[in-house]
């Protein structure tokens, strides 16, 4: 009696592990490209016109990022039909990062230090997210890019006063290091993984 039940437990755990699939290869890119491009647009707009409407360009980041994220998450779920504990941990962490950047941005705005500190804070949050995702997935390029980006996130603090729009350009580059480069590495890795799996089958 006991041996067969224990055998079922062991077999099912092995079966679930063998069916675990790599997902989320597009999520870093879905957030990385809109964030980086809008930061660049904002930088260009501030350098050219420096008017109040330039500040509304920020709205583009969640307006593009959130629908893209929902689309890719649904696509992943359609494919795998399950969500692993790791995927859930990563998702919850990034939702928290998004929430923290909104709350932090609003708090800095009210405190009157938005232009001084927000971009360093945003860069640090993105790079910590990248680092933690790499740790959870055991994916080294994300860990390395996360460390480089988090060290670089202090650079915007050196551009204050009249020079503050340059913080946008620097943060855009930090987002490239924290999201776009590791995103492409991961996408390439997942594609190769499935190619090898198909060849094996």
């Amino acid at each position: 009696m006991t041996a067969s039940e224990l055998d079922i437990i062991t077999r099912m755990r092995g079966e679930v592990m063998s069916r675990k699939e790599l997902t989320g290869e597009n999520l870093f890119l879905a957030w990385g490209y809109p964030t980086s491009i809008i930061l660049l647009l904002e930088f260009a707009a501030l350098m050219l016109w420096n008017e109040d409407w330039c500040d509304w360009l920020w709205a583009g980041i969640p307006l593009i990022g959130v629908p893209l994220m929902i689309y890719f998450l649904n696509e992943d779920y359609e494919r795998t039909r399950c969500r692993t504990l790791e995927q859930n941990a990563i998702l919850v962490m990034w939702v928290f990062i998004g929430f923290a950047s909104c709350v932090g941005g609003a708090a800095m705005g009210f405190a009157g230090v938005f232009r001084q500190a927000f971009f360093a804070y945003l860069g640090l949050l993105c790079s910590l997210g990248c680092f933690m995702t790499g740790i959870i997935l055991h994916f080294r390029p994300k860990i390395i890019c996360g460390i480089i980006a988090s060290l670089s996130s202090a650079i915007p603090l050196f551009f204050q006063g009249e020079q503050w729009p340059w913080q946008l350009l620097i943060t855009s580059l930090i987002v490239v290091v924290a999201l776009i480069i590791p995103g492409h590495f991961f996408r390439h890795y997942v594609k190769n993984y499935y190619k090898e799996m198909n060849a094996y089958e």
Partner: protein
Amino acid sequence: MSNFKFPVINSVLHNELRLKIMVALDSLESANFMYLCEITDSTRGNLSVQITTLKDAGYLEVSRSGSGPSARSVCCITYKGHEALRAYEEGLRRLFSERVPDMENKQKIG
């Protein structure tokens, strides 16, 4: 005389399909009905009945997304279910590791 006590075996989990469902969900955050159907190699009707039993015992949470024929049931294990599975597995392992050697020793003496 041995002081071995038989562990109480959870009757809800002591069923092949229900055990398979619980173990599969224990290793995942959530899974939909079709995934469970495939991984447990069972029919929809049987799976549905066993999921209801586990849900009634408070071991599973079932949520439905969408409506009509395209609606999907998503199952996830509760804390109570996780603890019950852990206790069940521990009980079986204790029974297997302590009782069986004990019986073997008695046979040798006999």
